[in-house]
């Protein structure tokens, strides 16, 4: 599947296209099929997202997982600072990232 990501313009936070808006959580990402370019152009123009692009991903039992390690690290946070990830209280959260 193809999912869309980018950064929030004001905060820089990593965000994912959920079909109607942008979410901090990769689990909310939806397959955009062939529509990546048109959605990104529209959302960039509206300044809902910055530096956006499409990435490959898979749907797993735990949810959407980006194919490449770089996007998986973007999705959760630095592997060396679990306290700064999106799930600081969950020590196993990083298991699927690396």
């Amino acid at each position, binding site marked *: 599947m193809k999912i869309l990501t980018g950064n929030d313009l*004001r905060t*820089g936070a990593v965000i994912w296209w959920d079909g109607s808006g942008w979410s901090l959580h990769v689990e909310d990402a939806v397959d955009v099929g062939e529509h990546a370019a048109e959605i990104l152009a529209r959302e960039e123009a509206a300044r809902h997202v910055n530096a956006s692009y499409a990435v490959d991903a898979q749907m797993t039992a735990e949810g959407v997982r980006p194919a490449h390690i770089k996007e998986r690290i973007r999705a959760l946070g*630095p592997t*060396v*600072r679990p306290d700064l990830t999106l799930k600081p209280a969950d020590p196993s959260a990083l298991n699927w990232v690396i």
Partner: protein
Amino acid sequence: MYQYDHYDQAMVDTRVEEFRDQTRRRIEGTLAEENFRPLRLQNGLYLQLHAYMLRVAVPYGTLSSRQMRMLGDIADKYDRGYGHFTTRQNIQYNWIKLEDAPDILADLASVEMHAIQTSGNCIRNISSDQYAGAAADEIVDPRPYAELLRQWSSFHPEFLHLPRKFKIAVIASDTDRAAMKLHDIGIQLVRNDKGEIGAAFYVGGGMGRTPMIAPLINPFVPIDQLITYSEACLRVYNRYGRRDNKYKARIKILVHELGKDEYTRQVEAEFAHLLSQGLEPPLAELERIKAHFVDPPFEEGLPDDLDLGDPDFALWVKSNTVAHRRPGYVVANVSLKPVGGIPGDASADQIRLMADLARDYSFDELRVTHAQNIVFPHVRKADLYTLWQKLDAADLATANLDSIGDIIACPGLDYCSLANARSIPVAQKISERFAARDRLETLGELKLKISGCINACGHHHAGHIGILGVDRKGVENYQLLLGGCEGADTSLGQITGPGFSEDGIVDAVEKATDVYLAQRQDGERFLDTYRRVGMAPFKEALYG
């Protein structure tokens, strides 16, 4: 330390207000990202893996307590409570919000700091010897000359759009502590037979994709022609540097392709022309700058002895302190490499503590080193034990300078959008593997440097042991290099062979150290043994 005059302050303040307006227009939508991006980069603001990242310039690595305290406050107020000291002697913040960036720059300007020219194809922050002004072996304090170059290169209209980024280092001793020959221009201040100060110019060094050691192109440029000669070097590069190919755009490629002799000939011709143009600032300006770098009020007649009764203190003194040029004083290094820690990171509290300790014990001065450590340059020996105790209480007294635990590591794939692999976890595992005191002592000086991609921010080419992260079909992989070195006898590390997994590279490093221990002769460091026995026994142990 240099203090801004009203021109310096006005330039920085004006830039803050310009950027505030640009940021406002970007958020409102009247400035598109493609137009805004070069503007934010000129102010050190990158968009990185997780957020915006701000790189703040620390000119030639020198900071006052007041500035250091501000760096700690910024980490708390606008970031997530820490900062990362870099191999360019700068500091980076990883979690910056665009809407906060103008306020951060304003806070920096209030302590005579900025983030200008910390990105982009321009002359970057000038780096220097972290022991400048304190080292027993320097012929002169290099910082006034670095400051003169900083002023010349800041907003230099001709050099804001160079073919590629440009890095200059200035040193003033034969012991090169700034990796000078691995810079676009390395300047060593020297004395001639008449006792006059001049500058030896090494041009065309660098790391990255195509590492090169800078050749000496002029052994003595009179000091009253320093700026004019620098201008000539840059002009030839700006005219002929490859703008068509990013990977061939650094000056090292131009010097290599033209050949040292032809490049030098062109520089000398340009220099002869420029001499008639009256470009050089008057020597009075250098004297004005020098007046900012007079010695602090050192006390005379201080005792030189230290009570080394506390064994942990004795270990730290042996490992982390360096001779000062004044009796009764010492240079103290704070290793930002605790066992299992993140190289170069310091919490806001640690940063502020170091600011306070510099105020109390080092005449208000600190230095950032290219090895991602902090220096208190002028500590009375009588105060050293107290200083150490206070550092120790804040986990800042790791005794491992220049050992295998004192690892340089770039942010790598945990933070950097250009990375191929993570650097920090590898550094953490190696530092844990070699944490035992007797292992560190047995191995002695062993500089290990890790980069997460070929851009080489972690100086892997210059490590006695270097590690380069690569992407092998989406999986992190690590190449091992041996025999690199910065300094007077600069050499470039050679790749041992096929790469290793994350755990495999830690084992490979251990095997390399085992070869060293088995082969070394009296007094040899790892590097000496490698240079004597060559790659073969290491390859045999790694792949045999």
